[in-house]
């Protein structure tokens, strides 16, 4: 016979548990006892009935989502897997979902399906479609009888009498209902004859509303390209249809309010916009017209001659100034010329000769301005006023200026 170590045999037993699909995923109904929430957040308890007990553990990751506080004595349904905790040699239930038993299996199934579909992203905000502002036609998926349809019709027509409603009648409870509801949504999508769909039913027990938690319905809504508003049960009831719908209404009347706009309000708004437009353009044109008028009224355009006259006057005055200035310049120049001419006349050698001076040149025509360069018998030419005389030098006296000059000098000495 084989001898096992404790570890080996425990491992073997654990594998037996894990091979069994029955205990890999199961629901257990029982009463909680010895409930302890460890400071780590994990919960440990025992499930029991009159004849047996089973250890259970719920880890923090699951326990933190519990919508109620488990307590000893509470009847519950726990969902999860049974396997062996090797250290203690103990098999126990690893709880994934835990619901009070009073609410029943439906609630657990709800929680499980919700988690599954949520993980698939069916409820994500990115998937929500915008409702049309003004639908032509509204599809309705509900019972042909009952208050829901009447409420939707009443509210819709009150808000927009011109809206068309199109009902696809379905059963809203019972085993046939989910298929019919899903099918109705598919038909509207296939026909493409409505802009938005309201899916709903009136209040009832959780069992009555159950069709709206059906996976087929939820998936049909998720697949719809037409926006869908849910209105299931009362304000406090939440079904998976509400989570997956593009918008959740608390009541059928509210669904109609979401879907159908108050047409009078819209008319008022559009009319206001139109009037603003008219006023704006009127003001704009008036403004431009005033500017044109102002320009047309200007003096320049009104009395163009005045403008010309002023210019003429300016021109005249300029011409006059030009004339004056020119004359002035001529006068000044003439005067300057006269003075210069006079100066010139004064400087003329002829004028000097006229005052009694004379010029002496030798035979070669060289100017003689120093007595020392002359000698007796030399032929010279003296230029006087009115003519020339040819002379011969008789005597040369240096430093002597003649008789007249002598007299003047002696007189000068007296002073």
């Amino acid at each position, binding site marked *: 016979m084989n001898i096992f170590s404790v570890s080996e045999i425990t491992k073997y037993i654990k594998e037996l548990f894990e091979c069994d699909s029955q205990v890999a995923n199961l629901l257990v109904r029982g009463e909680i006892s010895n409930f302890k929430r460890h400071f780590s957040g994990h919960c440990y308890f025992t499930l029991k009935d009159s004849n047996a007990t089973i250890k259970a553990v719920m880890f923090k990751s699951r326990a933190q989502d519990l919508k109620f506080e488990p307590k000893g004595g509470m009847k519950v349904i726990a969902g999860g897997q049974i396997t062996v905790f090797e250290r203690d040699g103990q098999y126990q239930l690893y709880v994934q979902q835990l619901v009070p038993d009073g609410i029943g299996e439906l609630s657990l199934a709800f929680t499980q399906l919700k988690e599954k579909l949520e993980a698939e992203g069916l409820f994500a905000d990115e998937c929500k479609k915008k409702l049309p502002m003004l639908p032509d036609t509204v599809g309705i998926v509900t019972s042909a009888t009952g208050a829901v349809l009447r409420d939707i019709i009443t509210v819709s027509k009150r808000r927009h009498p011109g*809206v068309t*409603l199109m009902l696809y009648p379905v059963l809203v409870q019972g085993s046939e209902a989910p298929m019919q509801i899903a099918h109705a949504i598919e038909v509207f999508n296939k026909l493409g*004859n409505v802009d938005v769909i309201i899916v709903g039913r009136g209040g009832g027990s959780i069992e009555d509303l159950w069709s709206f938690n059906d996976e087929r319905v939820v998936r049909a809504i998720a697949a719809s390209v037409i926006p869908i508003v849910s209105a299931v049960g009362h304000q406090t009831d939440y079904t998976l249809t509400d989570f997956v719908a593009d918008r959740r209404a608390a009541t059928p009347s509210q669904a109609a309010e979401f879907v159908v706009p108050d047409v009078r309000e819209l008319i008022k708004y559009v009319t206001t916009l139109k009037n603003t437009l008219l006023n704006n353009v009127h003001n704009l044109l008036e403004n431009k017209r005033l500017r044109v008028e102002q320009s047309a009224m200007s003096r320049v355009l009104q009395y163009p001659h005045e403008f010309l006259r002023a210019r003429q006057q300016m021109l005249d005055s300029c011409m006059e100034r030009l004339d004056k200035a020119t004359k002035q310049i001529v006068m000044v120049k003439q005067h300057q010329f006269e003075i210069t001419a006079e100066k010139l006349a004064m400087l003329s050698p002829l004028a000097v000769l006229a005052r009694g001076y004379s010029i002496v040149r030798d035979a070669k025509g060289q100017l003689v301005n120093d007595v020392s360069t002359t000698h007796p018998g030399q032929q010279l030419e003296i230029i006087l006023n009115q003519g020339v005389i040819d002379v011969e030098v008789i005597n040369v006296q240096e430093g002597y200026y003649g008789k007249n000059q002598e007299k003047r000098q002696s007189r000068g000495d007296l002073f």
Partner: protein
Amino acid sequence: MARTKKKDNLEEICFEQALEKLEVIVKQLERGELSLDESLGNFAEGVNLSKVCLNKLDYAQKQIDKILLEEQGKIIEKPLVVQEDE
């Protein structure tokens, strides 16, 4: 029909788009940044858009509501008559 394909045509434009365009035009005109020609062009478009919007809001013509029924796999439309509770 609701979901016919959009054409670039004022008659085919949906209410929401028409209203959005109209709002943009009104804002532009209010800011007064456009030339006179542009303003008048926008104005004409705006008036047309407001007409389109108001036409779509016209509820004078009452619509007949319908009920869809399937008979032997065929979908037929019939006028909707609200039944009282059973």
